[in-house]
């Protein structure tokens, strides 16, 4: 008897401490410098925002033409007189491109000495005020509609990869309609995770089906190849943009999201699993639990049965048949079944209760 009391007491006493610990975990202050995801990826050093677009020179034109109109493609030549890439490089195969541009792992190797200083660089090309832009700079390709490819990599092998293990094409769809499967979200990708082999060369065809901007932004790629460890496709829908990367040689799980305010939070979040994968990314709809969950409470909302009497008979019948299909009615049916099971199990309980009685009698 005494022993049992102590155990119960101890359990009861430790419970609140657990809650306390949880509460403290959730209430870590200083939201200024922390982005939950940042901690997911080790090796993120502080970055200088100004350099974001202005450090690396890795412009590759694969066969993926992001512009819809041939007009834009034609403008391309005109737009890039200051860059080493000309319209021909569109046609070049990746391998030739590689040789042509002498990419090295060292991010400092540039063809344009001025590229580090964005302002200087910008001054040079101020003369093409035309209708269509097609920007190729520092691994950053953008057309006149804001369709964007950043951090594309067609040929640089990550360390640990001797060769490309396989070439894959993945079509990613994005839009509000894909959020319908996940209550409490508004935007989503059509899939929440993709599996690829280490060292595989992956081409993403990112199809935005909404009439607004969406992004396919990947984080945690090796920084010696990908600036800030990022690969980024962006397009205003309905439209498709494609980009290619070579994934690292080790197992890992990378965050994929749309960084437009609240799009990730409201469901547009996924992960790329390389090989066996690493730690799961939290709060991916239907896949991983949220770090912080909202508190839900039942609401007393009007139900169909309340207005039944006012309807005429045929309507009543119709309403009943309709309501049977409704989830509310289903819930009530389940409740009834539960009650019946409870009733039937009374004899069973009776057997258990006397058992306890005897244990007390023993004491």
């Amino acid at each position, binding site marked *: 008897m005494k022993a049992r009391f102590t155990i119960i007491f101890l359990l009861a006493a430790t419970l*609140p401490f657990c809650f306390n610990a949880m509460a403290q975990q959730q209430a870590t202050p200083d939201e200024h410098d922390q982005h939950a995801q*940042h901690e997911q990826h080790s090796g993120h050093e502080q970055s200088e925002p100004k350099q974001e677009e202005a450090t690396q020179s890795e412009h590759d034109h694969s066969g993926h033409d992001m512009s819809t109109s041939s007009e834009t493609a034609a403008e391309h030549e005109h737009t890039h007189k200051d860059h080493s890439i000309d319209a021909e490089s569109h046609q070049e195969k990746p391998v030739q491109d590689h040789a042509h541009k002498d990419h090295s792992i060292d991010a400092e190797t540039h063809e344009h000495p001025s590229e580090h200083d964005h302002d200087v660089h910008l001054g040079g090309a101020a003369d093409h005020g035309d209708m269509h832009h097609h920007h190729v700079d520092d691994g950053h390709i953008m057309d006149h509609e804001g369709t964007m490819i950043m951090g594309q990599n067609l040929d640089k092998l990550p360390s640990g990869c001797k060769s490309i293990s396989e070439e894959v094409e993945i079509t990613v769809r994005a839009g509000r309609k894909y959020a319908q499967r996940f209550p409490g979200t*508004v935007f989503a990708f059509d899939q929440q995770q993709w599996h690829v082999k280490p060292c595989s060369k992956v081409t993403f065809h990112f199809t935005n089906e909404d009439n607004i901007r969406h992004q396919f932004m990947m984080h945690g790629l090796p920084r010696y190849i990908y600036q800030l460890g990022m690969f980024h496709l962006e397009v205003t829908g309905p439209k498709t943009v494609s980009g290619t990367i070579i994934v690292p040689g080790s197992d890992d799980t990378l965050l994929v999201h749309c960084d437009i305010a609240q799009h990730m939070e409201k469901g547009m979040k996924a992960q790329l699993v390389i090989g066996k994968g690493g730690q799961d990314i939290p709060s991916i709809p239907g896949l991983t639990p949220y*770090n912080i969950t909202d508190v839900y409470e039942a609401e007393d909302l009007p139900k169909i049965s309340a207005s039944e009497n006012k309807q005429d008979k045929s309507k009543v019948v119709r309403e009943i048949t309709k309501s049977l299909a409704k989830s509310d009615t289903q819930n009530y049916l389940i409740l009834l079944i539960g009650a019946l099971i409870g009733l039937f199990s009374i004899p069973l309980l009776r057997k258990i209760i006397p058992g306890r009685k005897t244990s007390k009698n023993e004491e």
Partner: protein
Amino acid sequence: MSNFIRTIIIIVYLVCASGGAYASLKLPETIRVEPTALTSEPPCDLKIPPAWRDAQVIEGVEIDADPGCSPDNPAWIAVAVKGTNNVSMDTLMQTHFSPDAIIKTDDLDGDGDPDRIVIKLEIMELNGKSPDFPGQVPTFDIAPGVQPGAWVFAPKTSGMSTENFESVRATPLIRLPSPVIRVEQGDIVQIVLENTHYFPHSIHLHGVDHPFHYEFNGNDGVPQTSEMELMPGERRIYQFQARETGTMFYHCHVQTHTHLSMGLAGIIVVEENRPNNWLQTLNIGGGHVRHRSVAIKEDFDREYDLHYHSMDKELGDIIKEYNDPRLTARDMNRRYQINNATEDYFTINGLSFPYSLRESLIIVDPDEKIKLRLLNSGSESIAIHTHGHHAMITHYDGVEHNPIAQIMRDVFDLAPAQRLDLKLETINDGRHSYGEGDWLIHDHREKGITTNGMAEGGSMSSIVYTSYLGENGLPDTSHFGVNLDHFFTKEYWERKVPVWQDLDEAATFGAAAGRTINLDTATRNILLYALGGLLAGLLLYSIFVGRSHIKQYAAALISRIRGEKGGKA
């Protein structure tokens, strides 16, 4: 058992004592909060290059000097004047504007400026909730550490919503207030709303001459009369060709009582049609217009857009509380009662004092004519008082007041949604101006100069003469002994700095030391939980001991119910 009770008593005493106090003959010491204990920030945002203040020409666009502390990025102005389609990609890349944000084409009347204007707006959330970490994203401070949940119309941007992946701060184009839009009389204007937000929205062009369409959508933004709410992920075009000029207002008309207060409101100005009138289509953050229209340039030396707004903290807190949009919608649409609400934040051009000094100073020189365009998008009337000046009201709600009947005032009352155009003349004659100085301009409803009830905050700013302007672009107050540093700490707005503590050496009005057993909150919580655990244990124990009694009682109850049923039968 008695030991157990004794433990409880001790813990209860400790918990209670940590909050209580005891009497003494000598009063407690005075505490002065040391400045070094505060998270102070520089009065001017260090990220803004001083070169942005200079008068300059970018892409052929003349940009006036702005000696203020945080002038607009001149590249923004160049792009806003030329259009994203008429500037080099390099200028564009300095702005984060999407390449299709402002498209200007077709000189239809042959007067040297484009007459087809397409402006793309997105809707962004500031200081919203994340399911991944405690805290807000992307953040926007209206004053140090003050981050109300807000929604804004933002120019269509490109790339991330935050400064970079390591930061949670919003990129500079995504901010309060919604941008000031400028179009020319007779321009064929399309405002393309791309609803990037997770709630339905719309645009109502209040005061702007726009047709009520029979087909498509009504073009008026009102879900109760002519169009459905624009759902997330969808796009809608609002088109107009304004015949009348004036300072007007645009805002979301979906659940207006909350959406407007959340920040979906901005100034839209229709300027006179003049030859070669390249307008600054967007004035990000309001304030100084550094590329004025032809007509304003003729009549005035400077022009300022002043957007007054108010927000309810409790309303903004809803988006900080829930991530699930259904819960946010529940609280906003059904639980929030604006009739019981109070305004807590008062902003001028999206910021409260002291940040208002960074961007919304009215910087003047003697003997100038200054055009002020005022909008009140708050839910109550405001009364703007100009220290040291009387200004002439030239336009009410965009319509010119009869010139003979125009009056001068020093308090300007603006009803909700009302606009006033003022002509401020800095003539030192005792009426127009009392002379040079750093003259306050503020809402004379006293709560208008507070931030969540904490003075001096709110929509306060200054009419400051350049002779009183410091090198950093803030009013130079040091020679008066005035130090604004404590306003630039988040602790001040958390009410942790005794406001008058530095007025004298003795800190007469410092804080009084407390005399409590100072348990920090963590220890106190642990004690509380321990107490809870002990009580729960006691309860379980008593249930365990008295279970035979409970059983008997339950049996009696059941038999009684059965008896009743039997009786009925």
